[in-house]
């Protein structure tokens, strides 16, 4: 159980601080071919700030070595934005008066077709965290409708039971994205005011349940801005490396989403500068040379272009965070956050090509019956 490891590192970190790390520690970590936890911690320390360029060079080299010059493209499709939680940082907060919508199955098909027409083969399905409005059965129905149009379908929804993950897997879902939001339990309690999401451990263990259920990939991350970023990034790395070790057949991916403007008044308590975001991404890459790293459209176009060579393996492209909206006919619901990189799929593809990268639309084919029968 990752929970036990999480608890013991939490204790460990009470008598060890990032401020104690020396430049020598950072240099040693940089020199190691395989990094241990203490090396990872060193790369997240204030001392490592002076080493961003050598870290970036090594991260770039490791990424090329392990992934080549290719980037997988995917796009999100919001199925619904009903939510039963009160997360202070999120537009979908139950208290927010926003336009709530849920796509009908017919609309799901129209949206799916519109996305598939752009050439995208990997689709991430999202819902607000309301079991009532977007039940596992509804998600499974959407999955079965979308299966024929896509090579890979992922979900980013409220945490489920192992059996429910199994059922979605059977319907045709193959990857899970679930962000812990914040690993620190006190902050977690303070930003999730009400709703089922309040149970920190249930969310923390969702990736393990999905791995048990047979999922082929899991993406995790902390929502940067909610907690002390060094700790949050450290726990994300611990979590990812635990999953890699325990489920060697599952592709583990980390993401470093920074908080974006949203409907509501909450401002990040620990805002992250660009340099800090870079440090986090580099530390992830050096600690897990073969792990995937996703970059979302929360970052601006120039920022995404600059971050690309540092270790990114997956990009979302042409993303909409509103419910529906890819097809002209669909009436949309309010967005979860503001997209910062508004380029179309073609523009992202052109950018990748101009930088010598190959845009990959499909790196996996789910060989189970595409009709989801």
């Amino acid at each position: 159980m990752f929970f036990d490891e999480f608890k013991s590192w939490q204790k460990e970190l009470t008598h060890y601080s990032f401020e104690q790390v020396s430049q020598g520690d950072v240099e040693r970590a940089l020199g190691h071919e395989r990094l241990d936890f203490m090396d990872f911690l060193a790369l997240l320390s204030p001392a490592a700030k002076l080493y961003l360029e050598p870290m970036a060079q090594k991260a770039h080299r490791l990424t090329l070595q392990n992934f080549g010059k290719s980037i997988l493209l995917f796009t999100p499709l919001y199925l619904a934005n009903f939510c039963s939680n009160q997360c202070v940082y999120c537009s979908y907060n139950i208290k927010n008066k926003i336009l709530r919508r849920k796509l009908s199955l017919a609309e799901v098909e129209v949206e799916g077709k519109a996305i598939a027409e752009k050439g995208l083969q990997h689709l991430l399905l999202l819902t607000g965290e309301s079991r009532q409005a977007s039940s596992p059965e509804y998600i499974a129905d959407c999955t079965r409708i979308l299966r024929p149009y896509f090579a890979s379908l992922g979900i980013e929804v409220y945490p489920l039971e192992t059996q429910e993950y199994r059922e979605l897997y059977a319907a045709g879902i193959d990857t899970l994205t679930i962000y812990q939001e914040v690993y620190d339990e006190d902050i977690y309690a303070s930003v999730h005011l009400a709703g089922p999401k309040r149970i920190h451990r249930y969310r923390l263990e969702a990736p393990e349940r999905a791995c048990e259920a047979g999922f082929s990939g899991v993406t995790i991350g902390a929502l940067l801005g909610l907690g002390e970023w060094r700790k949050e990034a450290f726990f994300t790395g611990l979590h990812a490396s635990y999953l890699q070790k325990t489920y060697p057949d599952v592709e583990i991916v980390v993401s470093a989403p920074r908080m974006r403007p949203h409907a509501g008044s909450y401002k990040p308590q620990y805002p992250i500068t660009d340099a800090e975001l870079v440090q986090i991404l580099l530390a992830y890459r050096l600690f897990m040379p073969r792990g995937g790293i996703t970059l979302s459209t929360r970052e601006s176009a120039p920022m995404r272009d600059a971050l690309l060579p540092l270790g990114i393996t997956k990009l979302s492209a042409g993303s909409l965070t509103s419910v529906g909206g890819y097809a002209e006919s669909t009436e949309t619901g309010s967005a979860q956050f503001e997209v910062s990189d508004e380029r179309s799929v073609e523009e992202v593809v052109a950018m990748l090509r101009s930088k010598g990268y190959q845009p990959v639309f499909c790196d996996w084919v789910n060989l189970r019956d595409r009709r989801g029968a």
Partner: protein
Amino acid sequence: MQQVNCELLNDPFEIGGQKLRSRLFTGTGKFSSHELVPQIIEASGTQVVTMALRRLDWRNPQENILNYIPKGITLLPNTSGARTAEEAIRIARLAKAAGCGNWIKIEVIQDQRYLLPDNPETLIAAEQLVKEGFVVLPYMSPDLGTARRLESVGAAAVMPLGAPIGSNRGLQTRELIRILIEEISLPIIVDAGIGRPSEAAEALEMGAAAVLVNTAIATADQPLEMAHAFRLAVEAGRSAYLAGLGARRDQAEASSPLTGFLREE
């Protein structure tokens, strides 16, 4: 002079609930006489020795090797001669019945040319013998999938080969062993192939828990000196591992900066 951290020197490891100080296991084969065995044990500082089980030449019985192994040394009988899991299980049971304790080094070899271990049979034997209460140390080809399965069936350690038995060719399987050290939480004991003390030191530097050495000591011109040399090498390698090896420099810093965009902030 700076004081050496005592923790570095007092650094036992555990197998099957037993704490061991020495990270050098020694084999007792190929020595010119049984009388050498206790001296080798002393010179090497070893706490675990291996031996094999064979049919007795009952018309001409000779002294048993066990009579030459000092008390307090852990006996690690191997199942050499076994070509299948079934035979290995049988040999293990016989060794235990002989009062040899419950440690067993599983060695299943079908290939008689290179004497390379049979991983699938080894796994079957390991699973059964763990169920029967043995402390199981399987000799294996360094394969991550097999090592993971050995770990999950309850092996006490895994013993990957560095090179074919008796070849004295060193850590030919270095990369694969490094992966086992990284991925498997059991002690990794490099068995077979280590021909020189420097190779034993390297295995320990990499993070191997211990090494098993036989041929290199037994066939040296001066076996006792060689046993001592291995003892020192293993201690040096372990201390180096604990001390944390210095950084190896990457190539010189590339000319086009990747973080230049940050200065524009």
